[in-house]
């Protein structure tokens, strides 16, 4: 069980919820729990094989999961996972 913070551009696919409580013991299970509840999110966050897309950054608390155990990083019931755009976005 972890809480996932949804970035503004993705809230359109989570009925405008900014935080979602998910099931699972790892980051990957938590993300899949999120996309099961909100299937429209799937194509924006996950590749066809279920792995996390290259341009999506996932943080557990303040740490990028790439410096932890990546998708297999363990989560606790009070953990907070953040989905962050890889770039800050902007203007041409």
């Amino acid at each position, binding site marked *: 069980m972890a809480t996932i913070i949804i*970035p*503004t*551009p993705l809230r*359109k696919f989570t009925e405008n919820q900014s935080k979602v409580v998910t099931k699972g013991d790892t980051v990957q299970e938590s993300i899949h729990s999120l996309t099961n509840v909100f299937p429209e999110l799937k194509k924006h966050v996950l590749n066809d094989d279920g792995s996390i897309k290259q341009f999506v950054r996932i943080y557990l608390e303040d740490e990028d999961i790439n410096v932890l155990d990546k998708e297999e990083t363990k989560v606790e019931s009070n953990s907070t996972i953040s989905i962050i755009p890889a770039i800050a*976005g902007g*203007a*041409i």
Partner: protein
Amino acid sequence: MIETLIESKLQERVNKLRPFVGNTPLFPIQRVFQKKGVKILAKLEWQQLGGSVKARPAYEIFRAAISSGELYPGKKLLDASSGNTAIAYATIGAKLGVPVIICLPENASAERKLILKSLGAELIYTSKFGGTDDAQEEALRLSEEDPLAYFYADQYNNDANWRAHYQFTANEIWNGTDKSITHFITGLGTTGTFTGTSTRLKELNHDITTISLQPDGPLHGMEGWKHLETAKVPGIYQPDIADDNWFIETTDAYALISEVAAKEGLLISPSAAANLAGAIRLAKTLDEGVIVTTFPDNAEKYGEVLKTLF
């Protein structure tokens, strides 16, 4: 000696900067894509003040605001931007002696932050979850809190943005191709480049086809681009100007960065590569034509992307 900047001096300074904005070359793409009868030309927009296409709207926003009296000595220019516009504002602001305040998402790259600080810009960080949409809201809040302290440039809703491209970019393309351009294709961010350039090109020749490009989703790697379905749509956006709108995948754009470096000798940014991906897709559908796209900036500020590619 303390410098007192009077309005006429500010006007004079901004006028003197005009020759350093625009007049960028059209570069023929000849080895990455070849097809008899079809040309792809890319406008090298980093070859101007501040190193990006944003010299154009930033300059025109400054010039128009100084001319109208909205920006005068003692006021600061305020806007939201994560990248090139902020750098262009800071560059021009430094030369004019106008302080610049930028609201930017805290996850903007360390390179951007360093460049902006070096140019003397004051930075106000906004949530890493909200992108430039949240940064816009913060800039608006600050400007409403103290309207006398700031000129809120509001690049997403300022007509000077698209007008810069209407007055200059389009005419440069028209003359640079000897009036032979048949297609214009470029990505959407503030939408200023596409809206201004396309509007003028269609006035010059209504048969010119204009195609806008967007990332294929809200989370992508094309710095500067907006996925309009999930973003705050800029007020200056005119969707009717586009004959078509296509979506580009980040992986396709990144693959082109390496190829263009190896075959064309240019190290281009992700958004430039994405524009080229669109131009090549278009070129494959044509028997003949002159396609023009823009390369908004080069790869100088994208060390983190280059590390993943080379």
